[in-house]
């Protein structure tokens, strides 16, 4: 197999072997954002949460918004990749890895938001030592740690054959790749183990992912606060998570395709398919939002209506309507026809969705807290540079991790592309034949078992 492997997919090895000026520039810029966040956190650590814009009725703000947002983005990955794998969608091959990486990186950042949000981070271990399962925060802790474990492993499994390829062909960082390849030699038994494990993980990861954002929503819906206490929140959050997740993958794909010149791997067709998926999620998101707000409006419960109007016409209207535009209007306009300029349109729509979903999280967290039941002065929340710093650093860390991952591991699965060429083509043909009513097709093809494609 010598260097034919490298030769055929030379483009995929590019980011691993060559490091350009752009890389250092990016790392530098991200480093600055992270530095901003680090300084902000140091100030917050020594002064207390008072350096943020939080106050009496609005005791949760940016950090909790970020928490929900990032955990939401994490559904990108694993869920999409698992669903595509299980449904044997052949076009998944170049995008699964990208999606899985997003999941793992972003989960760390999402969980980190809670730590940033704590008034006493030094007592963080109390949650481990004295945690109590009646609190939805512990549901989160459990669910997220399960998801983190599962998605990390689910990212790692399909990486193993690729790492072995790097170990044998790259000539750099041999020790790292040798360790992580787990002695992979591509024997039949190893393939069987790997394929079986990937299949199990793909099944396992879906319910875990659904549980994660469901319990994240429970943090709000388990309280009796107006516009939080809603049974729709579980599915609403999960749908929103998948929505923002797909958008994040598309943005990542667009950027990577451009920077590393992977146009021949990430084709407009991929963007078109994902764009259609995004369109479906746009509609689903709109449907759930509509159902949620109409229920509140029709019920006309005074406390609910206070929050409702503060979003529609009150102090939060810019955020609310920006969210509607970014999450619904713009994607609808851009995604309905994807025959031409599929890449550009989907990437732009996705960028808006990412922003819109952040606003959605914000619009869920803050207005409810700003409108207390008792005649308190209404809360006006505006973040300080500390919170902006944490937001910048969160994105900075996410992108930095992503960039470093692309430096160290192939961002498009080499072996899966090769498998697509060598086995997939024939297999799809065979599979198609089995779909057809003509019985002759079965007889014509020798029965061949392939655990998972």
């Amino acid at each position: 197999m010598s260097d034919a492997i490298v030769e055929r997919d030379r483009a995929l090895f590019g980011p691993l072997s060559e490091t350009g000026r752009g890389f250092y520039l990016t790392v530098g810029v991200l480093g600055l954002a992270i530095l901003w966040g680090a300084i902000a956190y140091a100030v917050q650590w020594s002064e207390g949460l008072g350096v943020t814009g939080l106050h009496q009725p609005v005791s949760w703000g940016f950090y909790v918004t970020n928490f929900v947002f990032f955990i939401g983005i994490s559904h990108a990955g694993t869920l999409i990749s698992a669903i595509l794998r299980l449904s044997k969608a052949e076009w998944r091959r170049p995008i699964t890895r990208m999606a899985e990486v997003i999941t793992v990186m972003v989960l760390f950042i999402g969980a980190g938001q809670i730590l940033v949000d704590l008034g006493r981070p030094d007592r963080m271990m109390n949650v481990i030592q004295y945690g109590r399962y009646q609190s939805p925060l512990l549901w989160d802790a459990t669910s997220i740690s399960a998801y983190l474990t599962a998605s990390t492993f689910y990212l790692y499994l399909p990486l193993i054959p690729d790492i072995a390829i790097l170990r044998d062909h790259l000539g750099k960082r041999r020790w790292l790749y040798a360790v992580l390849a787990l002695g992979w030699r591509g024997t039949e038994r190893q393939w069987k183990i790997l394929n079986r494990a990937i299949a199990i993980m793909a099944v396992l990861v879906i319910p875990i992912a659904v549980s994660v954002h469901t319990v994240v929503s429970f943090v709000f819906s388990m309280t009796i606060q107006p516009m939080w206490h809603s049974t729709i929140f579980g599915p609403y959050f999960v749908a929103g998570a998948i929505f923002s997740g797909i958008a994040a993958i598309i943005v990542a794909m667009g950027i990577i395709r451009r920077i590393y010149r992977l146009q021949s791997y990430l084709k407009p067709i991929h963007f078109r398919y994902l764009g259609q998926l995004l369109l479906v999620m746009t509609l689903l998101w709109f449907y759930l939002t509509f159902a949620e707000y109409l229920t509140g409006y029709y019920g006309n419960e005074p406390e609910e209506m206070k929050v409702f109007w503060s979003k529609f016409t009150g102090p939060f209207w810019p955020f609310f309507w920006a969210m509607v535009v970014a999450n619904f209007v713009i994607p609808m306009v851009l995604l309905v026809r994807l025959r031409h300029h599929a890449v550009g349109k989907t990437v732009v729509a996705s960028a808006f969705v990412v922003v819109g979903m952040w606003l959605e999280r914000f619009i869920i967290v803050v207005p409810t807290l700003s409108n207390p039941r008792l005649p308190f002065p209404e809360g006006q929340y505006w973040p300080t540079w500390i919170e902006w710093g944490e937001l910048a650093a969160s994105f900075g860390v996410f992108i930095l991790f992503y960039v470093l991952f692309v430096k160290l591991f192939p961002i498009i699965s080499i072996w899966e592309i090769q498998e697509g060429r060598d086995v997939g083509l024939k297999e799809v043909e065979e599979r198609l034949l089995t779909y057809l009513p003509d019985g002759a097709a079965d007889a014509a093809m020798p029965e061949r078992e392939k655990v998972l494609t």
Partner: protein
Amino acid sequence: MALWGMVIDLDRCTGCQACVMACKAENNVPAVGPKEAARGRIISWMHVLREESEERTRFLPRPCLQCDDPPCTKVCPVYATYRNPEGIVAQIHARCIGCRFCMAACPYNAKYFNWLRYQKEGPGQNPDVSVRPKGVVEKCTFCHHRLQKARERARAEGRDLVAGDYVTACAEACPTRAITFGDLLDEGSEVARLARSPRAFRLGEELGTRPKVFYLAEMEGHRRV
């Protein structure tokens, strides 16, 4: 066994803030200063809300309502706040991690957060109450340190706790005697009698939190909250 409760007669309340000041002094509630106050960070365990209507202005002193089914304790991840067997919703500052989930869950906004380090230990403070550090939640505890002391005294004297041994600072300070404090389970007590009065109502009754702070007002009082 007792179930501590409070009755506040709104028709007697003049909004004089004596209860607020007594509470501040008794519980070392920090004065956050004008800058923090402007940012909406006043800490006031007992807070006098104003209700203005066409006919008149009414004041509504709001301590922690000490719900019998408190929404805040359910969500605490570390058992820093819980309903104690005598019905007091406890707040253990030393255990609190400052996640503010209880603040988000409390429908009465009765929980307060130490956004900064508002005070150090020093002269002029009540030595019976600890000074809260930054980053933890605090709230009205029905002056439960007074219960600790009263119980200790009774125990040393070899007797049971009797009515009047334990009263909160706000009830003591109220010049119009609008605040009555005592054991709701003691049928004969003033507080139990007033709580059964037809004028009695509770804040957010429909939420099912079953507060142990009752308010007395003429029946139109039911209209609000």
